[in-house]
């Protein structure tokens, strides 16, 4: 597979569990040798998409291919070409780190002689060499997580699926994992990762699809998406709700979208943060309004969601929650 071909093709995939629609005609494509990020809150359907692509679940409708092989009709061929690190550290607590990796190597049908050196190499690489012969139940959460990712790499899969790979990792392990993903991609591996963190998608992915209730609601390169969704978020905290209401009224005059208020906090987004911030502070000052707190930050998944859907990026747990007005409007 040359770089530039499509490694993963997903067309109109649907999957429901009883009355819950997990995938509602999701579409996307991943170019070989790139990182594609599925970004969305809990319950958006990211994990279901990964499970269908890794042949664990059969979709109800639509089509998906991995390296040209249909995930339903040619599931076996797909399994020879993929690696998966799921949301939970799927390693056997009673086996040692080494035994876990060797088991995966065997079940991935690797040639016998190459399993042990590969396992040793990965344990070294993930900083687990010292713990290699200890049962995994003695590992810390971060160590288990690293072993889980290592297990996904044993057979050197050309396509790698990582479902929220950095959830539960400390900063150091997270950075190490990010570096490793970049190396794999430099070597030609295709990576599909899911994340709830815009920062992670931004730092790693060549393209991002924002997923909501089983559909892609926005797709593009990180810079395209950020240009669309506002670069900078400004959060102004007033000491009293009455002041916040007044400030909201003042600022609704010139913000690109109407400012979002939550209690005493007002949130605005802008593509030109510094200049916009000065304008905001001048207008507030002119009305005799002094912010109690001031925050300037890059947009989070929640901001992206608010812009795209008018809702906060909360898992949709119940119909009441789904129908509830956005928090900022209360």
């Amino acid at each position, binding site marked *: 597979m040359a770089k530039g071909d499509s490694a993963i093709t997903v067309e109109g995939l649907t999957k429901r569990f009883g009355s819950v629609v997990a995938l509602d005609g999701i579409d996307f494509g991943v170019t070989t040798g790139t990182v594609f990020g599925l970004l969305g809150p809990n319950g958006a359907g990211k994990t279901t998409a990964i*499970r269908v692509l*890794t*042949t*664990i*679940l059969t979709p109800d409708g639509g089509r998906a291919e991995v390296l040209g092989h249909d995930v339903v009709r040619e599931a*076996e*061929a797909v*399994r*020879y070409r*993929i690696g*998966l690190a*799921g*949301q*939970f*550290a*799927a*390693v*056997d*607590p*009673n*086996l040692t780190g080494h*035994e876990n990796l060797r*088991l*995966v190597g*065997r*079940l*991935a*049908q*690797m*040639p016998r002689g*190459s399993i042990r*050196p*590969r396992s040793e*190499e990965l344990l070294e*690489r993930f900083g687990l060499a010292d713990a290699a012969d200890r*049962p995994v139940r003695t590992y810390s959460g971060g160590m288990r997580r690293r072993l889980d990712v290592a*297990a996904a790499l044993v*057979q*050197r899969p050309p396509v790698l699926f990582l479902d929220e790979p950095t959830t539960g990792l400390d900063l150091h392990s997270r950075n190490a994992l990010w570096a*490793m993903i970049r*190396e*794999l991609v*430099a*070597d030609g591996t295709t990576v599909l990762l899911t994340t709830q963190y815009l920062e992670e998608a931004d730092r790693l992915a060549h393209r991002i699809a924002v997923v909501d209730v089983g559909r892609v609601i926005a797709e593009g390169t990180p810079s395209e998406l950020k240009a669309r969704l506002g670069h900078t978020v400004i959060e102004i905290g007033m000491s009293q709700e009455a002041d916040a209401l007044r400030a909201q009224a003042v600022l609704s005059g010139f913000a690109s979208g109407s400012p979002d208020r939550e209690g005493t906090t007002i949130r605005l987004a802008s593509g030109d943060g510094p200049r916009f911030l000065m304008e905001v502070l001048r207008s507030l000052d002119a009305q005799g309004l002094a912010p109690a707190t001031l925050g300037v930050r890059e947009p989070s998944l929640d901001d992206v969601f608010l812009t795209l859907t008018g809702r906060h990026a909360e898992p949709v747990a119940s119909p009441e929650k789904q129908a509830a007005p956005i928090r900022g409007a209360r």
Partner: protein
Amino acid sequence: MSQTAIAIPPPTERHGLRRLGGAVSDTIAMAGRNLITYRRVPQLLVFSTIQPVIFVLLFRYVFGGAVSSSLSVPYVDYLMPGIFVQLTVFGAIGTAIGLATDLKSGLLERFRSLPMARSGVLAGRTIADLARNVFVMALVSVVGFAVGFRVHTNALLFLAGIALVLMFAYALSWVFAFVGLAVGDPETAQAAAFPIIAPLVFASSAFVPVETMPGWLQAFADYQPVSVTASAVRALVLGGPTTSYVLQSLAWIAGIIILSAPIAVRRYRRAL
């Protein structure tokens, strides 16, 4: 990982005979993995041995006196074949718990994304549990012989009886494989298994002759698989006509496997 020098040849896809060989190899890998668990967590083995040992002592010394008057052989000789059968029934809970644990931990998800034989996980589990049964059975035999159990026929027929019990145990582990996958949680698996097990073990001829039970219960107790298998083992070990009971037991074993293995495999394909 560009700096690595180790070249990994791509895995080869399997077809035809190699596929069958692959299924065997995957099953061995999975069985090996499950047996390591018994070595690393010896409590699992200890507890599956303690229960039958307590039953041997309890029934031999506490209840035995009350039952023995109606028997033509010493009670302990009547009891041990029943003990062998019941220990495999209780042991089968382990199959359910093991699979439920793997399901809950996400391990089954990983296995299903790997190009391994679909039968490997369940076959590996049931075979490892068969090995555990061999071990427990050997220990309990020693205890039985120590408290006075004697084979009236010969060693060969005794071993045939043990083999029959192991076959019965293997059939049962497929039923409990299904239970474990269906409930998907180790604690629930334990709770769900008990109502299946209790009537099979206690409304049977495993510990006491069924003649003293009420008629409606006798109808069940006479023909259910635990009784039939216990009677078959008794005939093999203590003498008497063996053919009918052994055939009935084999029919139960075949029937249970034919029914439960496809259901368990189907459940495995769907479970998540």
